[in-house]
């Protein structure tokens, strides 16, 4: 089976400053790969590169069988789910409206929104305005939209930082469901102990270079 992600000697520069250097890695279907590293080591840039949201300036690779240099990444992106540092919500809309908006843009039946809110425990708090919601609630909405979209490649960038136990368990369940579907997950965190507990394999990113964690 083809790898879900394959990077070979990838380098990324931001504002003329090299952030990733010669990064090579392969993520197989069903795998949960953990990547740790200090602040500023390039973890988020690596996640964005894997999500095809950041183009590498050197090296090559493919995500879900499609090369980086292809002009059409739209079909690949639809199969990628990302939870980043900052929840991507419209602050003026309620949590339910945010989820409905994303469902509509993704072409998902909006009748699935309320059941998804129930799964993440927001069925009663769904009408709360996003800017008045707690960080954990916003994270739950992101989990809900990934439940609706069912991406094959899950990218979690510090996704459990600042979450309570039940919210962390939701993310754990999301990863398990993805494994059952044959999808792959890359989990990024500065907490290497947590990664070792959750992931099958961990790597360490230091000043833009990726090493196998010891």
């Amino acid at each position, binding site marked *: 089976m083809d790898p879900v992600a394959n990077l070979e000697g990838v380098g990324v520069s931001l504002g003329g400053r090299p952030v990733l250097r010669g990064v090579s890695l392969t993520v197989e279907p069903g795998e949960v790969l953990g990547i740790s590293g200090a602040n500023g080591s390039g973890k988020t840039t690596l996640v964005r590169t894997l999500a095809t*949201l950041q*183009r590498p300036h050197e090296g090559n690779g493919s995500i879900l069988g499609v090369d980086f240099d292809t002009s059409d990444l739209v079909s690949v*992106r*639809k199969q990628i789910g990302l939870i*980043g540092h*900052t929840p991507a919500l419209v602050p003026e*809309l309620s949590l339910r409206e945010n989820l409905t908006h994303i469902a509509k*843009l*993704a072409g998902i039946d909006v009748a699935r929104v309320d059941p998804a809110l129930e799964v993440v425990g927001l069925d009663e708090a769904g009408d709360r305005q996003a800017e008045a919601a707690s960080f954990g609630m916003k994270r739950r909405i992101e989990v809900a939209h990934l439940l609706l979209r069912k991406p094959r490649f899950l990218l979690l960038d510090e996704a459990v930082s600042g979450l309570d136990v039940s919210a962390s368990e939701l993310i754990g369940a999301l990863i398990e469901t993805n494994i059952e579907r044959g999808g792959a997950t890359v989990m990024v965190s500065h907490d290497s102990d947590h990664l070792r507990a959750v992931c099958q394999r961990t790597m360490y990113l230091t000043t833009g270079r990726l090493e196998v964690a010891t």
Partner: protein
Amino acid sequence: MSFWSQALEIARVDLNVERRIGETMRVVLPFAVVSLIVFPLALGLQVTVIGQIGPAVFWALGVLFGMQVALRQSAADSPERRDLQALVGVDPAARFVGRTISGGVLTFAFLIALFVAMLLLYGPSLPPGSVPALLLSSLLLAVGLTELGTLAGEVTTGLRSRTALASLIVAPLALPLVIGASQTLEALIRDESILPWVLLMMASGLALAVAGVALARPLEEAAR
């Protein structure tokens, strides 16, 4: 989801957000009306002069504050939202069209409200039957300004000085729209055909629409 469904969904949410925060009608419009009041005060309340300059002041303020509506904060997506839209398959061209629809509606409503305020404050004598032509030129100005503002917003996405830079891009490129809109009224006053000016505005709007749709994806990818 189809191109048009995505565009309409983006427009719907933009208008919903605007309804809640009221940036256009509760912030930009009052400032524009205050500016309308300042002109007669500066001219020393000469009633004849005020009546003559009313439409010109309306178009000038309409463009200046219309740019602010087109570049309003609620139409600027955060980087996280842009990433999410890319991952759910939003076509950047659909986002451009959606933003143009929502911005066009808001700018048109803003221009109408400003025009009514100008009529009340300046009392200009307009030629009979000029209202439909003024509505048409206001609509074309609103659409053109929004297209320009949305395009400039895309070009300057992620830049710290986005609002100032985008305004600098919009102001000179809006000239054909301003000339077309102001000359429509002048043509009505001189009892001439308004068609050349309406066609100028329509051509500008069409060119901007084509540029916006064609450049949306390359601009989005160039920013990555």
